[in-house]
């Protein structure tokens, strides 16, 4: 494969991981605008443990994921008292606070950034991303996924069925944070350098866009969304500096034509049904 192709696939893999991190809470109706913050926690934790204590990269990544997940759990409890747009804004504030905090932590270089020693190459990044994808796919076939949708569509009725809606929400939010931590760790070890400025609000917003543009109803949605945002600017390279203008117009048009996202549940069912039909014939 070409060097450029590899580089793009790595970007895509990391973007799919963080898109899945945004997808889980969104499937339960929570817009997390602080995913970049959780990525930063995962990335910095793994980078620090592997660089300062020479732990193996796998251990560092696991610790990064755990740290991000734990922070998610800690903030989910108070933050999930709010809902809808309030939650989106609370997570936005949280992401800003985390970014500002890393600007002040001298142990990881503060504004100067932090070099990351162990290197995660093409194979490592793609394997880990694939693992995350499979895990989320398996999760989506369990009762949990059903509860996420139910929680999103009608929390009151879901509660009446004896489901602890709050626990479902907290779980979705924390799991998303954990996956964001994995994404951040992959970023850290592949790109070998962390700066707080990398984890800004626009990154969080773009991740939310991956999911919303792709569709929040199936796991395929965030994947397609991440691919759209990763590959389209590359395909538009010929357009030189007009490429982001074309890109923006495409976002607006896609949302106008398919406001529920590119991949809706109905479309996914039709595709799956079609596949079965093909297999049968």
């Amino acid at each position, binding site marked *: 494969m070409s060097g450029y192709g590899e580089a793009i696939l790595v970007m895509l893999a990391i973007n799919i991981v963080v898109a899945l991190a945004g997808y889980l809470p*969104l499937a339960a109706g929570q*817009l997390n605008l602080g995913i970049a913050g959780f990525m930063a926690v995962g990335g910095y934790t793994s980078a620090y443990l592997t660089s300062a204590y020479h732990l193996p990269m796998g251990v560092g990544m696991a610790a990064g994921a755990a740290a991000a997940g734990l922070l998610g759990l800690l903030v989910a409890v*108070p*933050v999930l*008292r*709010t809902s*809808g*747009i*309030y939650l*989106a*804004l*609370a997570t*936005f*504030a*949280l992401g*800003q*606070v985390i*970014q*500002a*905090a890393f*600007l*002040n932590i001298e142990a990881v270089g*503060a*504004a100067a950034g932090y070099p990351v020693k162990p290197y995660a190459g093409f194979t490592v990044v793609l394997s880990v991303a694939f693992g995350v994808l499979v895990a989320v796919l398996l999760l989506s076939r369990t009762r949990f996924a059903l509860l996420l949708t139910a929680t999103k569509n009608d929390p009151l009725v879901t509660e009446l069925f004896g489901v602890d809606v709050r626990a479902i929400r907290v779980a979705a939010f924390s799991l998303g944070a954990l996956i964001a931590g994995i994404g951040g760790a992959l970023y850290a070890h592949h790109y070998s350098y962390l700066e707080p400025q990398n984890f800004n*609000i626009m990154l969080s*917003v773009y991740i*939310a*866009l991956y999911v*919303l*543009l792709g569709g929040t109803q199936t796991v395929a949605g965030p994947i397609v969304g991440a691919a759209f945002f990763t590959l389209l600017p590359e395909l538009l390279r010929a357009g030189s*500096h*007009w490429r*982001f*203008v074309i*890109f*923006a*117009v495409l*976002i*607006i048009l896609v*949302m*106008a034509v398919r*406001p*529920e996202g590119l991949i809706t549940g109905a479309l996914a069912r039709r595709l799956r049904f079609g596949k079965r039909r093909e297999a049968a014939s």
Partner: protein
Amino acid sequence: MSGAVFAQQLVNGIMLGGIYMLIAVAFTLAIGVLNFLNFSIPGIFMVGAIATWRALENGWPWVGAIAAGLLAAGVASYLVERFTYRWMRGLDHEIPLVSSLGFLILFENLVLIGYGSDQQTFPALMPDFNIRVAGLVIGTGQLISLVLALVLVIAASGLLERTRIGRGIRAVAENADTATILGVEIHRVVPALFILIGLLSGVSGILFAMNYLQVSAFMGHEIGLKGIAAMVIGGMGNIWGAILGGLLIGLIEVLSIAFFGANRADICVYGALLLLLVVRPEGLLGGSAIVREKL
């Protein structure tokens, strides 16, 4: 810190708050009435300022240039309504958000292509645009923004409270279906509101350019984020809250810079926002907002 410096810092904070107010009001109108976190507002803010700057560069008189800036901002906001809100009314509140971000990217990149990423110098209205009282320096431009923000908000509040279109807007804010059966023309009220939001953002952008003598493609980012914080702190949907929130954010920012350094300012500002959202999500003046139930 001496008393004189502290007094100057208070003035600085209030003046900065004056800049945040108008943009916070624009956000609060979009959220309060339409339940729409309109991310294109920082872009419209920038469009208003850039258009004014271009007109001035082309030798237009001040009044004409400002009119051009306001027109550009109004048109930009109308476009956002036409291609985001109108097509997606009644869907999840995240969806127009995505398209409004598309517009932010669009506006910024168009300006980037046209005029580059450099900050451009905005001509000064007069050589020393300041008032000096008892050792305090007060920016006239900022003072005008502050007063204008208050006047515009009183006007907007009056418009909402006392006029027919204002009642229509409030009716739509509470329940679009009910407003429809009462004969409110949603297809007119909503675009009108968007144009109002665009004009407020545009005024804010132009005042910003006059005060800080600069325009650039990304000028709306920082102020947009602070504007959102100000809106939430005051209470979403409450225009008086936006005023209070703008002032508070301005003061928190300036005082935290003065006491703890610029590195800590964002922690203070957004930490306050986070704390408020956890403790009192409806905001400081949330009780009397345009509408509460549906958020």
